[in-house]
């Protein structure tokens, strides 16, 4: 690191990245503390810190029992859940964009999320009808939902990839159109599931499909965490290869990358993360689109910056959106998917207009 620093005139982008990443981490930490304190029971930042330090055994202070309960059993798992979802959507988005070599590839836009949603809806509704899925559910327990999301998401991703890629190049218009087709088809399947569902299933399905973090608890956090952590590690290890892939598939091959293996690894991992996330929190759109794009705008496309940056900024955005979701109309709660879509859709339009000529749309 020191030796690299001496090289000097700031020629290598990687050298500037720690500043941005540290700043993002600090802001995220502050937002977490604010968010932990906000809600029906207001808790001051100092008390939040006191409860947290007691929880990890750093302090023997005696915070109020109710506050301690609210923080540890309700808000902390919810915020950790938001962090997991936000990071995985943003990092998966960044990686899919590199595989498609196109900055418009968002998991929700190109059908990964709705493919995952079909998997989840099938499991929720058909679980009691088909003995096969029922057995699967008994066998897999809490894992059945994220795994169903993963399989559905992977199938949709493969389909869009097949449709939109010819000779190693992805056509943007075809990719977005394929996304529309997959989304429409999946929407119809989910509609069918709603029609078939009984009242209890229908309520589950509706709550879940709007995109919400309200179901978060320690069980959902610990179910989702392994998927996200494994995914982040796999994708992080591919960061350098992804840089090279942006040059083009032939060029990446010339530079010693086994392109097909890399693409397969990325697509499967991204589908795993998005699928598990969608399974837990419903479809939350645009995070995977907005976050990597903002980062590239500020500091370039180097993945060793964009990937950790996406994890941090994705978490930041999701914790922030969740804070808005549960405080703006309190005591009611706005589905978080509604908020990210309200913020993200105009951004997407702006992106389209800005790059209209470049992508021949």
């Amino acid at each position, binding site marked *: 690191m020191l030796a690299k620093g001496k090289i000097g005139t700031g*020629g*290598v982008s*990687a050298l500037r990245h720690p500043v941005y990443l540290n700043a993002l981490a600090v802001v995220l930490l502050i937002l977490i503390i604010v968010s932990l304190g906000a809600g029906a029971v207001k808790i001051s930042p100092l008390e939040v810190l006191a409860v947290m330090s007691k929880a990890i055994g750093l302090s023997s202070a005696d915070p109020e029992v109710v506050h301690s309960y609210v923080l540890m059993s309700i808000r902390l798992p919810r915020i950790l859940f938001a962090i997991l979802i936000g990071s995985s959507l943003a990092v998966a988005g960044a990686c899919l964009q590199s595989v498609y070599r196109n900055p418009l590839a968002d998991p929700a836009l190109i059908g990964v999320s709705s493919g995952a949603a079909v998997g989840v809806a099938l499991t929720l509704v058909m679980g009691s009808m088909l003995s096969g899925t029922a057995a699967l559910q008994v066998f897999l327990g809490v894992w059945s939902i994220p795994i169903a999301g993963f399989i559905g998401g992977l199938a949709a991703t493969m389909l869009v990839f097949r449709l939109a890629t010819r000779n190693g190049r992805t056509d943007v218009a075809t990719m977005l159109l394929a996304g529309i087709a997959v989304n429409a088809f999946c929407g119809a399947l989910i509609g069918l599931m709603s029609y078939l569902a009984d009242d209890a299933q229908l309520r589950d399905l509706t709550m879940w499909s709007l995109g919400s973090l309200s179901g978060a608890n320690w069980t959902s956090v610990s179910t989702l965490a392994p998927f996200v952590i494994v995914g982040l590690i796999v994708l992080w290890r591919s960061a*350098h290869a992804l*840089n090279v892939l942006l040059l*083009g598939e032939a*060029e990446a*091959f*010339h530079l*010693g990358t086994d392109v097909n293996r890399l693409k397969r690894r990325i697509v499967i991992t991204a589908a795993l993360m998005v699928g598990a996330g969608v399974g837990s929190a419903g479809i939350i759109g645009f995070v995977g689109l907005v976050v990597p794009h903002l980062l590239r705008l500020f500091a370039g496309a180097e993945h060793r910056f964009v990937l950790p940056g996406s994890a941090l900024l994705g978490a930041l955005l999701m914790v922030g959106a969740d804070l808005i979701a549960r405080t703006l109309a309190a005591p009611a709660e706005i589905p978080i998917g509604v908020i990210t879509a309200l913020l993200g859709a105009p951004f997407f339009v702006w992106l389209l207009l800005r790059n209209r000529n470049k992508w021949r749309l």
Partner: protein
Amino acid sequence: MTSSSSYRPGLWTENLQIKQGGKVILDGVNLRVSPGQVTAVVGPSGAGKSTLLRALAGEVRPSGGRVGIGPHELREIPIAKMARVRAVLPQDSSLNFPFKALDVVLMGRAPHNSGMERPEDIDIARRAMAYSRISHLEERDFATLSGGERQRVHFARALAQIWPNGTQTPMYLLLDEPTAHLDMAFAQALMGGAAHLTTNNIGVLGVFHDLNLAAQYADHVVVLRAGRLFTEGTPAEVFQPDKLRQAFGWDAITIQHPTTGRPVVLSAEGDKGDFESIISA
């Protein structure tokens, strides 16, 4: 390697056949790119020049015959290992994402480091940029560069990939119409730079549209016609009016360059086809 244990120098094809979509693109091509030489591939459009380059790069697999480096066939050489001795300058390459020119050149070092560039990689990238005379572009966003500037950045990237390491290991640089986007002076600079690499035991293969560029820089010229090797030899042997007429269907005359002594190819006269009768018909 079991099929052939004999030592063959260079990057070679043996009776190479390539089929794509049932169509034979290349057939029976024997070629050798020798370290220390510039080999030029010329031929009419659709003769299979770029396909030949892609086969030599290992990008397309032979449908028949063999491609190899030294004693090994390409399919026996791991992709990552291959990338340490062979670089390719593509005809054009798009990059929709913001990278600094230096970062793009540094990607050329990817085969030599495991994801984290070392100080010597940065040093080599800077030297490759100086060699390509684009040091002033180092900090520029690649996406904002002109077509010619991008081409030179990619050239520097390819150079950084096979930058001489002092061991005299034979290495290969494959150029696919390297000067297509370049002005004359830059085309000369790029080809001059590529030709000088041969002194470091690097074999250069270029696909050229411009015959005079091939005549000026090549030690060995290979003419492809309709997927087959039509003729090969030194520029003086190959660039002769009768051969050019047969290969390109082009009436050309060849003169000698007053200072280099190499052949210069010119059109015999303008095409005086029966245009008028078509208009007045």
